[in-house]
């Protein structure tokens, strides 16, 4: 019983409160209020999703027809009636070479999703086989003092997702490590705050692209003689630099606007500076700091795609870019799959931060 209560709380916390409703429906104790909730939280979103897919399908079909008619028309004017007929037949047959290039339909996207998953399984099997094959050889090479042979095959879609997540978290933690301490220091001193304010205001709106170029200039030189993965370093540092501003500003604000009552308590208890900062100022600023971190994480994820695309570091961004340049028949639908995955992960990351934020917030009585 206890366990199910905490489970309920957690699902509610994470924003999946409707699971509770779903459960009470399955266990049979539906009340009117429950039913209404069920309608609002499950049926209505599902219906709107179906509607969305329907509209998408129709839109894609219309675009397809426009593209197809244009192709037939072109064949007619350039090569005559015969070619036009051939083109029409070719399009109707679904042959790859004459498919119109346009917005893919939902079913095509779904098919691409499955292709990508299968591709992942194949690559994973390949990789495992490779490792097994080279195991003894590598052991020998290592004992001879040589470097081991590593798998250098093409990364699968799923690998790219994990690379992106890795980069985003590296960037996020970099932002956290830079922005929180600096924010605290700035927040504590009025003089410091006004002296760096202009710098922050100028750097904050700088576009991710410019950060990337800046980081590129520096990191390229620094990593000249090392074998480290400079594309990864460049992209995670750029992500961190782009996204840290929200945390920096929020931390400084939280620290500088601590409730006067709490400061009075610290004074009356005669807390030392260190104690005052760690026992009064920081706890009281924590909710604002976490709001900043949440913004930082979502900005990280948003700029990551653009930065990977430019830095040519592996990940979802370069996946999208490669598919776009590739121009294969299912490229468009793969791009859309990536779009949904990117959105879904972004949503998930935001939820995780929201959960953490609620957990540390002392303003609410959730009691978890």
């Amino acid at each position: 019983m206890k366990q199910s209560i905490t489970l309920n709380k957690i699902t509610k916390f994470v924003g999946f409160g409707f699971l509770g409703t779903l459960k009470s429906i399955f266990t049979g104790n539906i009340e009117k209020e429950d039913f209404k909730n069920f309608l609002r939280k499950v049926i209505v979103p599902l219906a709107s999703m179906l509607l969305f897919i329907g509209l998408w399908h129709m839109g894609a079909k219309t675009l397809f027809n426009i593209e197809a008619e244009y192709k037939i028309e072109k064949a007619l004017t350039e090569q005559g009636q015969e070619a036009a007929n051939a083109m029409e037949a070719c399009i109707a047959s679904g042959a790859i070479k004459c498919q119109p290039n346009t917005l893919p339909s939902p079913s095509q996207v779904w098919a691409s999703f499955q292709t990508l998953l299968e591709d992942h399984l194949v690559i994973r099997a390949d990789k495992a086989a490779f490792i097994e094959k080279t195991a003894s050889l590598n052991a020998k090479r290592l004992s001879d003092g040589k470097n081991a042979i590593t798998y250098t095959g093409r990364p699968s879609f799923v690998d790219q997702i994990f690379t992106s997540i890795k980069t985003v978290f590296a960037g996020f933690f970099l932002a956290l490590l830079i922005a929180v301490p600096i924010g605290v220091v700035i927040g504590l001193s009025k003089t410091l705050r006004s002296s760096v304010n202009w710098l922050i205001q100028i750097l904050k709106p700088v576009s991710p692209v410019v950060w990337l170029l800046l980081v590129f200039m520096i990191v390229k030189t620094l990593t000249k003689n090392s074998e480290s993965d400079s594309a990864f370093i460049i992209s995670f540092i750029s992500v961190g630099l782009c996204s840290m501003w929200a945390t920096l500003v929020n931390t400084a604000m939280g620290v500088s606007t601590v409730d006067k009552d709490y400061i009075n308590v610290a004074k009356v208890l005669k807390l030392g500076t260190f104690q005052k900062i760690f026992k009064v100022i920081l706890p009281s600023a924590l909710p604002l700091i976490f709001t900043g971190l949440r913004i930082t994480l979502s900005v990280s994820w948003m700029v990551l795609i653009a930065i990977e695309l430019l830095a040519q570091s592996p990940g979802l961004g370069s996946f999208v870019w490669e598919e776009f340049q590739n121009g294969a028949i299912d490229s468009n639908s793969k791009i859309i799959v990536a779009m949904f995955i990117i959105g879904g992960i972004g949503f998930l990351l935001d939820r995780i931060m929201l959960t953490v934020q609620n957990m540390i917030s002392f303003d609410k009585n959730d009691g978890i």
Partner: protein
Amino acid sequence: MAYLELNNIYKTYGKDGNATEVLSNINLSIEEGEFVAIVGFTGSGKTTLVNLINGLLQPTSGEVLFKGEPVVGTSHERGVIFQNYSLLPWLTVGQNIYMAVKEAFPKKNKAELNSIVADYVDMVSLSHAINKRPKELSGGMRQRVAVARALAMKPEMIIMDEPLGALDALTRGNLQDEILNIWGKDKRTALLITNDVDEGIYMADRIIPLRPGPNATLGPEFKIDIDRPRDKTEMNDNPHFKKTRNAIIEYLMDIGNERKSVSTTEYVLPELSPKDFVNRF
């Protein structure tokens, strides 16, 4: 020389154009071991006065002397019960008090500190809520935590800013007795700000009214010559009690009326008559 002395205190908030002088020419001296109550209207500057004494504020002119030394900052010798509780919301009841006790007795070990915390939490009968956070407590419970926090530090002088305002009569009575108990035990000194004349008479040796602000000054003092320990029911029949009580209330009503008549603006009321007043009845 008095234990606490306020000489010609003036306190002004704000600067130049929109400066308001809240307190004017405040003179007060409290002897060691005395219990003094200050009664006053809301907004007259009672909290300002308290903060001048505990060292959170500095007077615009005049001096506050504590044991002959000018007050320049806060001190553990003067414990404060804040009017708005000022508990740290991210700490539990126990942790809030522990933090204060640890600062007051840095040499004591953890177990000793914890037992002090437990004693004082028990004194304000909040043992069941020791692990709760302030947000989960009622206003009265929070006030009791604030009382426990200040008393647990065993200050030489206890400064209380309307400490029992949000409590029901019964709890209020109990806490009054606890405070008197602690005050009497080691002969501490106490300053109580209150808006309840009866509370002042029950607890204090002297009651001093603070006249309404701006430019609030202290009024004439009223001595309470009733033997301790005092008994609430017996006191009601005590002629001295009746006389003092009436005198204080009369004085407060007088300055209240004065305040009304001081305002010279005339308000012209629009002529209003209820629309269908007759038809209603």
